């Protein structure tokens, strides 16, 4: 897979999750904190995945 496509897919998922977080926050359903926090953590992990792809591309994790 092309690296750009992978990055776009990750960002798209993040965007969807962000809309989910906004929805949970404004409706304030019961247990909203737990749901919102799990979504936020997912988003953070996806963000770190973005950086991981970049670092891998730069050859940081390649064997010498």
């Amino acid at each position, binding site marked *: 897979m092309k690296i750009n496509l992978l990055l776009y897919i990750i960002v798209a998922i993040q965007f969807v999750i962000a809309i989910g977080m906004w929805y949970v926050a404004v409706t*304030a359903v019961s247990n909203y*904190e*737990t749901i*919102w*926090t*799990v979504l*936020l*953590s*997912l988003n*953070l*992990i996806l*963000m*770190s995945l973005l*950086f*991981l792809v*970049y*670092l891998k591309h*730069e*050859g*940081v*994790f*390649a064997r*010498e």
Partner: protein
Amino acid sequence: MHMEEKNDYNLMDALEEDESPPGSYKISLRSVTRKEFRIDYWTGSFLMTCLMYLAISGMLLFYYFEQGNPYGSTQQIIDGVYFGRLLLTSHLFMAYAMVIIIYVHMFRNYFVGAYKGRFRWLQWILGVVLFILVYVEAVLGYLLSETYIGVSALHVMELLVEKSVIGRLMPALSNWIIALLIGNASTASTVGHLLALHVAIIGGLILLLAFLHFFLFEKSGPFNLSEKKGEETVKKYYPWYPINLIYTVFTSLIFIAIILIFSAFFMQVLPPAYGALLYGLTPFPDWYIMPVYKLMDLAGYGLTTGGVPLVTFFFISLLFIPFIDRYKSKGALERPMITVFGVFYIIALFIMGLWGYSQPGLTQTRLLTMAMWWGITMVSVFTVYAMRFAKKDLVKNEN
């Protein structure tokens, strides 16, 4: 020929420009080699992440906390403030993570002997001071909500100051320390003092020393254990910006995400308030103080001659490790007695902690105490020397 004596203790050298790696500035953020992108080289980076997260979440909590109504306002943060419970829980869990990672960071650098060499001895001493300050900060933090556990801990601290060597030899000093802690003993005054200590004084000192610690690290670089003499390889350096920065952000984000998931599923429940009617509840300290708490029972010689001097000895010996350790070589097994001390500390911490939870406040006999200390000593000496012997044997048979 006149040989210039090597002086590791001249701190003015820290202000001079580095020669290698290329491209670094006077106050530099170092470029790193590929070999250094290993998780055990980055324990300090996780601590910086903790520090930043705690500072930011602490500032947000500060808006809602009232020193005249500590328990009520903490309860209000949990029940009434939007996302308040998450904020409070993640502040707590990040602090727990910080204490755990401090131990990992400290013992990693202890066992590899990273406190040896130029600036590193001072880095180690600053690190131990930071360790003590973080513990003080953590304890102050849990005194703030005025639960029955917090207030009991405050009473114990007052008694320890009064009845220990400080109080017996320098009563004026002990009075001053207690006045620092509790003010005029009204709730508003006590919590106000504790809040100022937690937020401004100890917190500020931690920030200041952490950045000094980090500056010295940038000067001396990561401690490289596996670098062999005479083996000159061309190293590829990655610049601090953007590779190093992105790696730091990458590890920090995963770490924060893990802490947040924990906070989401184990939301904090506030213990009962001080003064509430309680039956059959023993006030337990938090887990990170449990070993010290049990030590006070276990010493069997009373507080002034047993527990307090032992804790003091623990910290003083840690503080002066760079000067105690006179072994020439690096590596854990090449410095056997130092490693024995480290193994002893680790085993003792776990045993005391677990024992504290199973039998809190139950005084042990001197015989049992002696048996336990000598037992741990034997185990740590034998394991380290057995591993040393095994390694020598392996090396001999390989050739």
